[in-house]
């Protein structure tokens, strides 16, 4: 087999982040190379470098033995590299043919679109690779699987030899995955070469010829399915970082505060994203929910906090039924919510620090009397909280957008923790923060636990889950696969569960 593509020492830095560090990768003619890694491991950055969306800070790319400079997707396409995006780049109201020819239109008499010839070419490609799709159908009428086929046809129409699939199975049903794998095999049989990005171990074992595992932007290992197993891969994927250490005493769990029974929730596309999920959280303990992002965690939190409708099942907090309650009523019985996306949900960026500190309590005394908003009282409380939670801000009147991410998160924490709460639902409470802020917020969460608060912590960061949780639930495709004691579980077991490999853990 001849070497088709070679990446040599690719390094890509972003401010404060080393996304890729001296990554080497070799793709042979006619093989499937799996690029495996957790979210944030640098897979997508690496592929964006290859596709010309980013230029690397260091390193070289060779195609068929000669060095190439790829400055734009256009260059990549010219070299024969095509990308099948995870999020489809299709125009819903255009037909398949129109979408395929978009950006590369063939013309009749110089001005008219030559749909017929493109359509014929699409049929040819369909035939050749087993990609069944009607060239004249509108995209919006197609299923997700069919739309993905159109994406693949787009790449093949531009005569790509190297196809990059960015987490292609993330959006597909199991049946569609089977179909996709058939297509992938037929592509390889006819001489195409593939890079397959995923974090799902089973798929890698099924389909790959070679495997490259990325961790923290570096190559953690190169192997083949023949010489490895999911367990070893999981190990490589999650790495062996030094754990974030948080001082904490053993938990003293008390009565059940949050009880979720057979919860079913739909996502925005009306697909089941939380599937008959049940869990309990007791006062004085932290239940960590681990899992790769997009396995229903967001929808679970939204359903618990009243932001998303519950299809079926029950949520009970402090002995009260809060299923489909309003966000306000759920908050008023003593729950707090640190939202996943602080800038989208947790803050009004153009509002002052003071106003954001009372964002959901502004209507209660002492901040309001009748309809009158008591700015003086707000200012007093805000000044106090800024001090207590060490929020670094020039004043309480500046817009919260002027603060750093860590201080913005502290504003949310200050707001939610300043109330007498019995339940805390914290979703990715330290996302994107520096180590100092992470440590601070972790300590605050532990403090709340020790005060007898029940805490549901949702995070895709294994380190965070392991550092804080007393028990760990692993969420996969809307279900909780297992709930484990944090003291006895290993990262490898969690990694396997997060990748959907169900294996009874022998403790």
């Amino acid at each position, binding site marked *: 087999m001849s070497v088709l593509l070679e990446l040599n020492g690719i390094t890509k830095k972003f401010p404060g982040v080393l996304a890729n560090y001296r990554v080497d990768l070799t793709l042979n003619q006619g093989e499937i190379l799996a690029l495996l890694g957790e979210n944030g491991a640098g897979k997508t950055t690496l592929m964006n470098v290859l596709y010309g969306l980013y230029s690397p800070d260091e390193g070289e790319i060779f195609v068929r033995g000669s060095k190439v400079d790829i400055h734009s997707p256009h260059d990549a396409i010219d070299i024969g590299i095509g990308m099948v995006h995870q999020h489809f780049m299709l125009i819903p109201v255009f037909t398949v043919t129109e979408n395929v020819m978009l950006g590369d239109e063939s013309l009749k008499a110089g001005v008219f679109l030559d749909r017929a010839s493109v359509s014929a070419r699409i049929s040819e490609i369909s035939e050749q690779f087993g990609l069944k799709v009607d060239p004249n159908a509108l995209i919006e009428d197609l299923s997700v699987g069919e739309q993905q086929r159109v994406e693949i046809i787009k790449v093949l129409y531009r005569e790509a030899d190297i196809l990059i699939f960015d987490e292609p199975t993330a959006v597909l049903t199991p049946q569609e995955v089977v179909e996709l794998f058939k297509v992938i095999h037929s592509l390889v049989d006819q001489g195409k070469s593939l890079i397959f990005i995923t974090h799902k171990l089973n798929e890698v074992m099924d389909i790959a010829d070679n495997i490259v595992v990325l961790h923290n932007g570096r190559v953690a290992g190169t192997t083949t399915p023949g010489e490895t197993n999911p367990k070893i891969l999981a190990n490589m994927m999650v790495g062996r970082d030094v754990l974030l250490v948080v001082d904490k005493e053993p938990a003293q769990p008390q009565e059940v505060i949050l009880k979720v029974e057979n919860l079913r929730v739909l996502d925005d596309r009306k697909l089941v994203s939380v599937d008959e999920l049940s869990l309990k959280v007791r006062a004085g303990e932290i239940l960590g929910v681990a899992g790769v992002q997009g396995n229903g965690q967001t929808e679970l939190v939204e359903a618990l906090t009243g932001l998303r409708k519950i299809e079926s099942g029950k949520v009970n907090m402090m002995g009260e039924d809060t299923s489909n309650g309003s*966000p306000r009523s759920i908050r008023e019985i003593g729950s707090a919510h640190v939202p996943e996306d602080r800038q989208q949900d947790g803050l009004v960026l153009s509002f002052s620090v003071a106003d954001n500190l009372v964002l959901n309590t502004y209507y209660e005394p002492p901040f309001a009397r009748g309809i009158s908003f008591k700015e003086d009282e707000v200012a007093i409380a805000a000044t106090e909280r800024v*001090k207590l939670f060490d929020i670094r*801000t*020039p004043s*309480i009147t500046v*817009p919260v*957008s002027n603060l750093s991410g860590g201080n913005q998160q502290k504003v949310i924490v200050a707001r939610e923790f300043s109330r007498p709460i019995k339940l805390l639902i914290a979703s990715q409470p330290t996302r994107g923060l520096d180590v100092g802020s992470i440590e601070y917020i972790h300590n605050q969460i532990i403090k709340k636990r020790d005060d007898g608060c029940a805490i549901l912590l949702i995070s895709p960061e294994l380190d965070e889950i392991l550092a804080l949780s007393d028990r760990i639930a692993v969420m996969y495709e809307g279900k909780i696969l297992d709930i484990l004691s944090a003291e006895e579980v290993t990262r490898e077991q969690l990694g396997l569960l997060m990748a959907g490999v169900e294996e009874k853990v022998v403790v």
Partner: protein
Amino acid sequence: MNEEKDSNQTKAPSQNQKDERNLLQRIFVRRGAFNALVIPLLSIFTALLIGGLIIAFSNLEVLAAWSNFFQAPLEAVKLTLASMWGAYTSLFEGAFGIPKDIIEAFRIWLETGETRALREAFRSFSESLVITTPYIFAGLAVALGFRGGLFNIGVEGQLFVGGLASAYVGYSITGLPWIIHLPLTVLAGILAGAFWGAIPGILKAKTGAHEVINTIMMNYIAFRLTDYLLTGPMARPDNLPITPEVAPSAYLPALFDKPMRIHWGFFVALGVAWLVYWFLWKTTTGLEIRMVGANPKAARYAGISITVIIVLTMSLSGALGGMTGVNQVLGVDHRLVRAFSTGYGFDSIALALLGNSHPLGVVLASLLFGFMRGGAARMQSVAGVPVEIIRIMQGLVIIFVAAPEIIRSLYRLKKPKEEEGPTVPDVSMV
């Protein structure tokens, strides 16, 4: 412990002294002095400059002088400047009055006690304020909507139904003392406007139908409704398309004798502007409206019902729109004629934009537009410059305010560090 990356930019920790958050700070500190003041002022300046060039170069004498530029270059420049100067001095005199006449009027008043000349001299000033008043109401209507994230294009229609309702209550009920009749008449107009605004609000809240489309449609309905009522049920007995005259007990009283037409509506408008400010920034409901406008997702998270706030915001915006019509009917015309609005509802969008959706900004913008309009007639009669040039200048101001990049690059200004949250709702959904 762990020094954060940002600690240098925020050296001063929490300030302990109580924060004084007065009006000016609200605007100039919180919204950033840069965006709030510099851009509008430079926009106005630039528009006056360009307007001046248009005035000069639409003057045939100036053009003739420029064709002779190489024979008499100074002459061309001199004529150009003279033409601009002439136009703008007459605009100023038209807007504020002629200084010489005012001094003379004071002299007569002091000597004889006769106020007639004084009233004549201040008539221009009064007229400018008469034009300013509906601008304030209408501008506030749009600004309130903007703050709540809603684009109320329907002020013109709300103004018509508000005018119709107040005219009807004003002429059909007679014999009441003014203390009852006037508030009743005003209330009728406000409620009509609120109702007209609430309809697109409900449609938006319940079905997601975009308020821009629906307020425009409500405008057409209001116009045709007015046509129908003025030619039928509400027409004057002699069948002219005018309503009967409103009873004097429902007048917004004039402040002075004729020919000065300025009436209490102007001070009501200032009071309402203060009220809108107080409501938006000093009440919890106002906070809710601003929260929905600035970040609806966070508002939902904070437990606010977005649908309720949308309907409320549109109703209040409509009420202010209705008040614009009330002001014209009860303060100026004392009846409703089809042409009683010269497009105040549409100009108001520009005013809210220029005023940064802040009540004080709206008042200032309204004064600017009111006085420009007020002076335009004299500019036409004295300097021979068509009044439409004022429209062009107003258009330019709005373009510059809406696209501050033009002004920034023109005057080599740096972009402010932090862009503020939107004061204009995103209409990309349309």
